[in-house]
């Protein structure tokens, strides 16, 4: 078994029945650094004491607990390429996409990190293909990661089609398994099981939950890298924007692949006191109007419990609908049914704010003034509309009972990006 680049724990090795650990570099899982414990897997400095005197790292505990008496096994031997990295995607990039793709290639060649700041629906994935192909052809190893499972689920078939002759590993949740392919698609957490393994790491939707506010996940990227890191987002946060002054390469793409501007959201003020038990008539009228134009409708709600409740209300009106949230085990199936147009309306929490592409889809946000909807979230949500060339002007409506800064900033930024 090829374990090159892996960073594993004792139980993980036992599970894989690895007998030959002679090639592994063994390091203590927790080390004391200037009087503070530091976890060698996730680099966080917050270990917690146990009653028996040991310490453990709570940050990466979901991947199996590490205490100061445990060890990490790092397999530093070089990776043996298995695929040829031939690009089996034969589409063409728009001039804007091509320029962004070239800039990424230049950054990676120069060993620089790179930010692709592209509006939702700019065709970010396609822009990656040439650089990823080049890296694999040069015997390099590439990881495409995202904090969102849904993003990885969406990307996997597209990469499998674009690199038909290259074995691809897709991994989210669950255990470590053999990962000797040249291309890994995974959630960011999975990078904790690698050490200096990848010549290129692409982090898609880098500002999304849970990566925003979890420094440990940024550390996971840092310790799994061997070469450049490319960050992809439509809404870079302050840290990324600041890094632009410190040598981070950047491609800006403010036009969608089909050349049409982003749909500008309409803010509609109305009384929302009875939501979610009851929906305002104006909202229901809007949904009916949208459905009459052959479009489906994606409705965002701020609370997990609302997803089902709002779906129930709509169901009573005779609409085919479902509610999804992060806690829903059937989430993937429901999204699939929506995509195949077996559902008229999909009610969702912010879990679907990114990475989901449904053509001819109107977007509504219920209680858009809720704190759950940051400006970045609202921009991402508005970006679900107008994805197809034949329906670039899908309506986007923020239903709210008051104005918030986030609402105004989101709208202003969309108008700004359209104007560039």
């Amino acid at each position: 078994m090829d374990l090159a680049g892996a960073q594993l724990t004792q139980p993980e090795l036992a599970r894989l029945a690895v007998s030959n650990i002679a090639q592994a570099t063994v390091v203590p899982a927790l080390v004391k650094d200037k009087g503070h414990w530091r976890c060698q897997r996730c680099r966080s400095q917050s270990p917690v004491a146990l009653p028996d005197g040991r310490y453990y790292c709570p940050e990466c505990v979901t991947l199996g607990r590490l205490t100061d008496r445990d060890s990490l096994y790092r397999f530093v031997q070089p990776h043996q390429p298995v695929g040829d990295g031939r690009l089996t995607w034969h589409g063409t990039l728009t001039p804007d996409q091509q320029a962004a793709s070239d800039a990424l290639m230049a950054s990676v060649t120069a060993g620089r990190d790179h930010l692709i700041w592209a509006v939702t629906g700019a065709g970010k994935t396609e822009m990656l293909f040439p650089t990823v192909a080049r890296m694999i052809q040069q015997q390099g190893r590439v990881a495409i990661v995202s904090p969102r499972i849904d993003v990885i689920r969406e990307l996997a078939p597209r990469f499998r089609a674009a690199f038909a002759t290259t074995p691809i590993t897709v991994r989210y949740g669950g255990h470590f398994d053999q990962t000797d392919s040249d291309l890994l698609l995974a959630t960011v957490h999975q990078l904790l099981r690698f050490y200096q393994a990848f010549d290129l790491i692409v982090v898609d939707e880098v500002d999304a939950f849970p990566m925003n506010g979890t420094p440990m996940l940024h550390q996971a990227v840092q310790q799994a890298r061997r070469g450049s890191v490319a960050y992809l987002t439509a809404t870079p946060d302050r840290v990324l924007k600041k890094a632009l002054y410190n040598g981070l390469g950047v491609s800006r793409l403010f036009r969608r692949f089909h050349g049409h501007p982003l749909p500008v959201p309409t803010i509609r003020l109305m009384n929302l006191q009875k939501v979610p038990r009851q929906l305002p008539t104006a909202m229901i009228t809007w949904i009916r109007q949208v459905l009459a134009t052959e479009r489906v409708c994606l409705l965002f709600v701020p609370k997990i419990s609302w997803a089902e409740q709002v779906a129930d209300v709509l169901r009573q009106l005779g609409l085919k609908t479902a509610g999804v949230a992060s806690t829903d085990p059937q989430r993937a199936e429901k999204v699939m049914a929506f995509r195949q147009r077996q559902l008229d309306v999909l009610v969702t929490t912010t879990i679907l704010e990114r990475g989901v592409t449904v053509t001819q889809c109107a977007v509504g946000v219920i209680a858009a003034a809720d704190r759950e909807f940051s400006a970045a979230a609202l921009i991402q949500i508005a970006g679900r509309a107008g994805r197809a060339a034949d329906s670039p002007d899908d309506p986007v409506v923020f239903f709210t009972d008051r104005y918030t800064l986030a609402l105004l900033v989101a709208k202003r930024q969309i108008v700004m990006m359209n104007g560039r």
Partner: protein
Amino acid sequence: MQPTEQLCSDCRKWERQGTLLHNRALFTYDASMKAWIYQYKGLGDYRLHVAFQDLIAARLRHASALVPIPSEPKHFELRGFDPILGLFGCLRLRSWLRKTATERPQAQKTRQERLKTPQSFHVLVPEQTLNRVRQITLLDDLYTTGRTLYHARDALVAAGFKGTIDALTLIR
């Protein structure tokens, strides 16, 4: 939760086999409690031991003698903490019981296997100490079949305790 005077089918089965041990639980074993106990006991995330402290303290403030169900020495070694002591550690506990090693943890057995588990509790204190209190409340994290708690109760009775015994678990 509204307490009712009716017995569940599980308790009725135990009643037919002898005297009933009255058990109250703070939560039902639903998906979120399952996730919580997995993170706490399964992964060993000791931080979670304070999660229900307020609730537990309020509930047991007036109880007489609180006897925690001990964990096996082997499990303690592995986890680095005792899950029951962690949960109820904010209260004055009397560690009157000890558990000898069993071949497999309860969590890995089927219901029938669990019910057949032999007695493995020993009382560590003499009869006089036990009988200084009139009531004992046994404490555990999870009530599944009741086997563990009934064994603990039987051990205390066999050691000569004459008062009443009931039980409180976090989850059932």
